[in-house]
């Protein structure tokens, strides 16, 4: 192995420092038209009319598209994972989030496209908006999604991710104390320095060349082909360097809409989002609402945990069911908790749809678990590092969804942290390993965790 452990310069380092790396907006194709979007000014409203006639006759305008121009209006990006379609490419009867695209214009200049967008007339009837996940379950909550206010299509048509492990009632009856906490990380905008951008070129042979900043080229190819109802080989996707994505450029729909403008105008088209659009309309990491109740003994054993998660999916499902699934599998963090009661919901609100960002679904639960552990340690008067090592995952312990760990690194990591910060550990902690539990480190409630890593 020549590369592992070696210090290899980036293959694109020299290109980056000489300004030669080509990002999508650096692709210059003569005759390219500029695209601009007409977007919803409301969180939630019915659309009563869409009139693009004025826009179509404005100077420099070559094409205007609405939902009528889309061969397959709704396509589930993760239908391969069993998540059905719920989101129209362009709004038809209603808008469910501020910034939702309704129509697009392609014109000779950016300014002309923007002026034409201003001339598109959309009739709205505002509806009450649901902006707080906690209210989604109220009897009088506005109903904002055709499936109801939370996603109902997990396996066996479950309306939540549910994990039941061991005997939670036993854990709560035998605890010395129950520690509760509510954790609510807010939405985070990826804010890549490169905004979303796409350039599409019609080729003489009838194919479309798509220059995209997507993080997932083949994925985007499938999405475009599905919405346009065309075979995959109609499109040539050219990726390259994305100017930062962090998960925010995996659900891009710019390619599809730009292709439609190209098909209608016969000209190359570029759509470059402004920074305002990127902040206001692009998908974010989701806000989460997590409630934990943990059954603990006075010497710091975690007997069991109840957890309720509300994941704010925004107006549409996108990848949220997948994110929540990962969240549920990891909801005990780096620690062994044998008795579990977890319910997680993908909740719809009239906010910008949410998506992946750096550790999709898991960063939220890590935040909650770690903060909660400190709360537990403080309440019990136990050292924050020791309580973690005591309850750490060990070889053979199982995850919330029953996967046995073969080589968990919790203990080694905590020892390294203690070392780095000069935190003294007692002798028996200094010698702890991740070997399966035995002796004092195997109290009754953890006997069930001792497992083989072969054939779980």
């Amino acid at each position, binding site marked *: 192995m020549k590369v592992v452990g070696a210090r290899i310069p980036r293959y694109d380092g020299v290109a980056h420092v000489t300004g030669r790396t080509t990002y999508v907006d650096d692709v210059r194709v003569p005759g390219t038209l*500029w695209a601009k979007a007409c977007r919803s000014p409301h969180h939630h409203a019915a659309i009563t009319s869409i009139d693009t006639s004025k826009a179509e006759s404005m100077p420099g305008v070559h094409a205007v598209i609405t939902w009528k121009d889309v061969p397959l209006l709704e396509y589930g990006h993760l239908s391969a994972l069993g998540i059905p379609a719920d989101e129209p490419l362009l709004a038809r009867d209603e808008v469910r989030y501020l910034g939702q695209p309704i129509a697009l214009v392609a014109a*000779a200049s*950016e*300014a*002309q496209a*923007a002026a034409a967008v201003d001339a598109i007339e959309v009739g709205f009837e505002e509806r009450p908006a649901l902006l707080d996940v906690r209210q989604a379950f109220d009897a009088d909550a506005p109903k904002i999604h055709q499936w109801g206010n939370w996603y109902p299509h997990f396996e066996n048509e479950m309306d939540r991710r549910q994990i039941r492990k061991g005997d939670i009632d036993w854990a709560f009856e035998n605890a010395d104390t129950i520690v509760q906490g509510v954790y609510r990380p807010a939405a985070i905008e990826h804010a890549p320095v490169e905004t979303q951008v796409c350039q599409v070129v019609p080729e003489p042979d009838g194919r479309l060349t798509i220059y995209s900043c997507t993080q997932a080229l083949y994925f985007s190819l499938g999405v475009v082909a599905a919405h346009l109802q065309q075979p995959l080989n109609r499109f040539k996707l050219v990726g390259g360097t994305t100017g930062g994505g962090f998960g925010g450029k995996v659900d891009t729909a710019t390619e599809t809409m730009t292709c439609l403008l190209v098909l209608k105008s016969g000209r190359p088209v570029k759509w470059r989002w*402004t920074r*305002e659009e990127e902040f206001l309309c692009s998908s974010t990491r989701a806000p989460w609402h997590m409630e934990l109740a943990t059954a603990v003994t006075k010497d710091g054993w975690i007997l069991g945990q109840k957890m309720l998660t509300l994941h704010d999916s925004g107006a549409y499902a996108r990848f949220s069911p997948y994110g929540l699934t990962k969240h549920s599998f990891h909801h005990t963090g780096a620690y062994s908790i044998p008795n579990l009661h977890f319910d997680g919901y993908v909740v719809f609100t009239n906010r910008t749809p949410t998506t992946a960002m750096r550790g999709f679904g898991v960063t939220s639960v890590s935040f909650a678990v770690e903060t909660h552990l400190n709360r537990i340690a403080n309440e019990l008067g136990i050292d924050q590092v020791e309580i973690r090592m005591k309850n750490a995952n060990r070889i053979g312990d199982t995850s919330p969804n029953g996967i046995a760990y073969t080589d968990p690194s919790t203990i080694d990591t905590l020892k390294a942290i203690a070392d780095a910060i000069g935190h003294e550990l007692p002798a028996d902690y200094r010698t702890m390993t991740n070997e399966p539990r035995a002796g004092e480190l195997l109290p009754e409630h953890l006997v069930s965790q001792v497992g083989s890593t072969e054939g779980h």
Partner: protein
Amino acid sequence: MAVASMAVDAATEILMPSSEDEAIAAFGDGADVVVVGGGTIVVPDMTYRRLRPSKALMLGRAGLSGITKDGSRVTIGATTPVQELTEMAAPIGPCASNVADLEIRSQGTVGGNLCAGEGSEAPRGDLQGAFLAVGATARSAAGGDVTEEPLEDFLAKRGERLLLSVSFDEPAAGAFAGLDRPHTHDYTALAVSGARATDGTLRLAATGAGSWGARLLSAEAAAGDPAAAGEAALQDVSPRDDALASAWYRTKVLPVLVRRVLTELKESA
């Protein structure tokens, strides 16, 4: 091939005078004129189509930049870059250093900063507080007539007059205290400037406590007791919620900043 930039509107008449007299004439009575100092505020407003001026008066070549001293009287031309103020004594120096970052300070002008229109998401006019505290006067023109008046009076009609320069007498002592900015491009959420003139007159002013800089007259009256003055300052302002901070937060912090400035001024007596 001419650039098809979002910022450009073919209908905008561009005026680029090359002297103060030409600038005054071009400004006229200011009707429908947008004044462009360095461009750091106006150009993005045009790019985002918030501003579509029928006339744009670009002052960059009108010779209005520069700092001159006549004894202890300092005069700063309206198109002097903010960066040129950063080494001056408090309050102006630290106030200017607290504006944006090096590149923007080097392009943005004193006049552009002082005359910035009310921002919807954040208070503008970072420098107003410092110049009010040193008792500055503003020389401006409208309809061909040039007037010098207290800065307060000019600010009240800054949309109608063309700022040419500001002047002040160097104070005996000055101080500045402001909230740290979460990001270099945030306008100052809240800052207090104070100065004691050579004749002993004390002036206090805040930026970010309302839509533009305000003298803190009640605080000045109680200046002998910094803590009391801090509380009194709340009578002089109407803080609001915006993207940078809540009104509540500003009312909690303003007395602290006033106290710090007064304490510093006392110690330099």
